């Protein structure tokens, strides 16, 4: 089925999220929708899926104008969507999830699970998915859960499939498998819309590329275009994609973590016997798929975890058992994974947020009173130095874009005398321009002789910043390898395979 979007305009109040967007997706084609976070890709797809109603423009399927009042209409018309966050009921089986919303019943209102099972088996066999219809969804790996989403869409005879940022939660290997599935679906004649901001994936799988910026189509690109070309089209200016850094100059100070075990409130061991060392002047990147203990590891470093055994020493001083305040006082800078929840007070001004972790004494506080003049001078200096784009220092941080919010956090954490810098997902949800800036500052911190720990689930980022890469899987360290380790070895390590076996598998 041929999908055409003609002049779609979607406004939120006076904000134009989609501005006369035209898009044609032919059957048997993978059409990539490339754009930064917030460019309007998801809004456009939500219009297509009937979740939003566009003010202007038409949706055409095989040249017939469609009117969707809700996702039900869109599904009935043959549009299937694989969401970034899975829309599955975790405690249901695969078959139950697939039939959810269009249950077939037998006499007396009994569910016809056998029909659903048969359908799952049939689709699973056709595409080689290997999905057991009776498996409970929450027990399945993320990659398989995503296949259940695809089966759901296919079971409703979708001819147009939309994949909304599908690779964010996958290991590189799972990503490769997904791409193979997408190609297979394309070859069966489906029209596929693939939404992403990852350039590598685009070039690998796309037949055509449409780039969206600030709600408008800014151009088409061919899959043969270079990363730099695609990035500059996406951002609107030339972008430095690689992080330039010299060989590290190691110092003998640093962080030493020994046999660290963190148990969460439910009693589950989330960090399991982790040991590593980071010297001053070196970046250790912690790679791994989301949820393999990285978050808890960084929180243990800063003293946020309650149940911790083992040892964390910084320049010989033990940090385990100290309060967050005392760890900060030891010179630890911390960029939390979720800046809006853990890093910033949204209602507070930029100036207030810049002193958030220094309200305990001079120079920001003297004799119990805030030093407003100092605070404001400091804030003005920092927003200039860190290029925070805002009306002024009195702007509430909640009003800033993700990139500018992150720059506020980074500015705050980097303006103390650091002896260790820990950054978790430092560029998540941040625009490309700010990513470039934040990466440069992290390397500058390293070059100043500070040990740096960066946690990233984006392998590209981990590789770009790291001097060494530590891969975590289910709370354990799979291995610590040099930054120039091949991607596919790293990918296998992220699935829990030891570096030796991974190398063997890759060369074999």
């Amino acid at each position: 089925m041929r999908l055409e979007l003609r002049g779609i305009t979607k406004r939120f109040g006076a904000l134009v999220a989609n501005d006369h967007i035209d898009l044609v997706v032919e059957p048997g084609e993978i059409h990539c929708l490339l754009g930064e976070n917030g460019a309007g890709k998801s809004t456009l797809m939500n219009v297509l899926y009937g979740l939003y109603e566009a003010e202007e423009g038409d949706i055409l399927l095989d040249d017939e104008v469609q009117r969707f009042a809700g996702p039900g209409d869109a599904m009935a018309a043959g549009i299937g969507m694989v969401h970034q966050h899975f829309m599955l009921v975790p405690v249901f089986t695969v078959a139950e999830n697939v039939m959810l919303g269009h249950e077939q019943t037998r006499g007396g209102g009994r569910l016809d699970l056998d029909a659903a099972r048969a359908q799952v088996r049939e689709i699973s066999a056709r595409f080689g998915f290997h999905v057991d219809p009776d498996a409970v969804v929450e027990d399945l790996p993320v990659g398989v859960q995503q296949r259940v989403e695809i089966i759901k869409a296919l079971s409703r005879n979708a001819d147009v499939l939309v994949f909304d940022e599908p690779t964010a939660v996958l290991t590189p290997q799972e990503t490769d498998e997904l791409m193979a599935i997408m190609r297979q679906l394309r070859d069966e004649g489906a029209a596929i819309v693939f939404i992403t901001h990852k350039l590598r994936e685009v070039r690998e799988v796309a037949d055509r590329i449409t780039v969206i910026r600030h709600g408008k189509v800014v151009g088409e690109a061919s899959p043969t275009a270079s990363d730099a070309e695609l990035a500059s089209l996406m951002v609107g200016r030339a972008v430095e994609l690689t992080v330039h850094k010299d060989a590290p100059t190691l110092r003998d100070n640093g962080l030493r973590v020994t046999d660290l075990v963190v148990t969460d409130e439910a009693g589950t061991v989330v960090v399991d016997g982790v040991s590593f060392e980071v010297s001053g002047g070196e970046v250790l990147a912690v790679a791994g798929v989301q949820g393999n203990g990285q978050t808890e590891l960084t929180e243990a470093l800063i003293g946020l975890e309650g149940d911790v055994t083992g040892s964390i020493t910084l320049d010989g001083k033990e940090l385990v058992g100290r309060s967050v305040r005392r760890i900060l006082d030891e010179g630890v800078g911390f960029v939390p994974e979720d800046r809006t929840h853990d890093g910033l007070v949204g209602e507070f001004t930029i100036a207030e947020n810049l002193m958030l972790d220094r309200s305990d004494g001079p120079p920001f506080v003297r004799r119990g009173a805030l030093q407003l003049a100092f605070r404001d001078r400091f804030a003005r200096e920092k927003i200039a130095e860190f290029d925070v784009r805002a009306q002024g220092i009195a702007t509430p941080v909640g009003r800033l874009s993700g990139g500018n919010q992150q720059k506020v956090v980074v500015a705050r954490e980097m303006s103390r005398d650091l002896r260790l810098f820990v950054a978790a997902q430092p560029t998540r949800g941040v625009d490309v321009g700010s990513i470039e800036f934040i990466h440069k500052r992290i390397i500058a911190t390293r070059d100043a002789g500070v040990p740096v720990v960066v946690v990233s689930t984006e392998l590209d980022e981990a590789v770009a910043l790291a001097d060494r890469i530590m891969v975590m899987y289910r709370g354990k360290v799979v291995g610590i390898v040099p930054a120039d380790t091949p991607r596919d070895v790293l990918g296998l390590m992220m699935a829990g395979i030891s570096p030796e076996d991974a190398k063997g598998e890759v060369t074999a």
Partner: protein
Amino acid sequence: MSTPESSPGTDPGQEPELDPGTAEELEQERARAATGPVGDDAADTQTRLAKALQQTMTSPWTVSVGAVLLAIVAGSIMIAFTDEEVKAASTYFFARPGDTFVALGQAVGGAYAALFRGSVVNLQAPDVATALRPLTETLSYATPLIAAGLGVALAFRAGLFNIGGQGQMLVAAAAAGWVGFGVSGVPFPLHLVLALVAGIAAGALWAGLAGLLKARTGAHEVIVTIMLNYVAFYLISYFLATPGLLQAPGSSNPKTPPTPPSAQLPPLLGERFNLTWGFILALLAVVGVWWLLNRSAAGFAFRAVGENPRAARVAGIDTGRATVSSMLVAGGLVGLAGASQVLGGVTTGFSSDIDAGIGFDAITVALLGGSSPWGVLAAGILFGAFKAGGSTMQAAEGVPSDIVLVVQSLIVLFIAAPPLVRAIFRLPDPARRRAPKKARAARNRKEAAA
């Protein structure tokens, strides 16, 4: 699905999040380019006016004022319905409808005139002092409301809902009262100070207990403070009925002895008025709380914990300590209200109803005042005026004083539903304030890029 307006900045995949700063700059540049140097001033004034108007329309204060207006309108309807003359005139409405409207006007106008006469200034009075007496009555009713309102507002800013005003007032009144009539031989200012300190400390400890339980065990402060209200009420009732504790000697009533003059708050404007120095203490408390919240390190920590406890914790702020100390201060403020009652308001001895519902009215005052110290001052005075004027309304116009309470309650109801007030007055939603700016920014950027 949440719409982008409802979750600005939290959903990165939804809409362009552009910073208002550059939007503003570009805007100004454009304005300058368009109008040239001559028209610059005019354009500037215009945007400033528009901005001021925008700010007024979206300020929470406008909602508060709107809520008061709505409540007064609703109150008028109540007055009209309960007025005997209106009822009488309406029985022959179709014969002479004019009578009904005259009666309506008289009833409503008369009632609000009486409210004004009883709470602000009595123009029928023979001399200036008597004319201004209603205002001093308002302020003296407002005194405990302001102090207790500050206590609720401060806790609220630290993210805690202090429902325990009643209990905190009762223990404070008991402590202050006991130091008042139980300790003798201490001269005037010292005795008063001792009694005040005892009251404030008792209130602080009572609320601090809830804070401590919350910080240490995670017990919810709403439940704990409510239950502590019961504990305080029945404990004080028991003390009041037990000779040798709070009960006046030789009496069988559950009532304390009177407060001796050496422990009384002296009158502020002479013996003719009920207003005491307690009002000055309340004003000092307003300034103190303002300083604490906006200028002190402790207040910074309170607000950080109140707005985002997780971020506060990550930033090394001891959230438990902030919880306990904010409740201590909050309880101390409510304690001041309780102490000012027994040392200034009711000096003839008190019983277990000494809190007079102020502990709960304080929640209303704090909400109406937007949890800001100056807002609490204004809201406290407004409620004081309702209390002072309510009795005049009843005495002069025969309006049931319950109707005054209905008006008060309606104010709270309307305050609690800002979208309702905004819808009725067609005020813009502050959450949407950003959207136009962003759109302009997007446009500007596109133009700049083109």
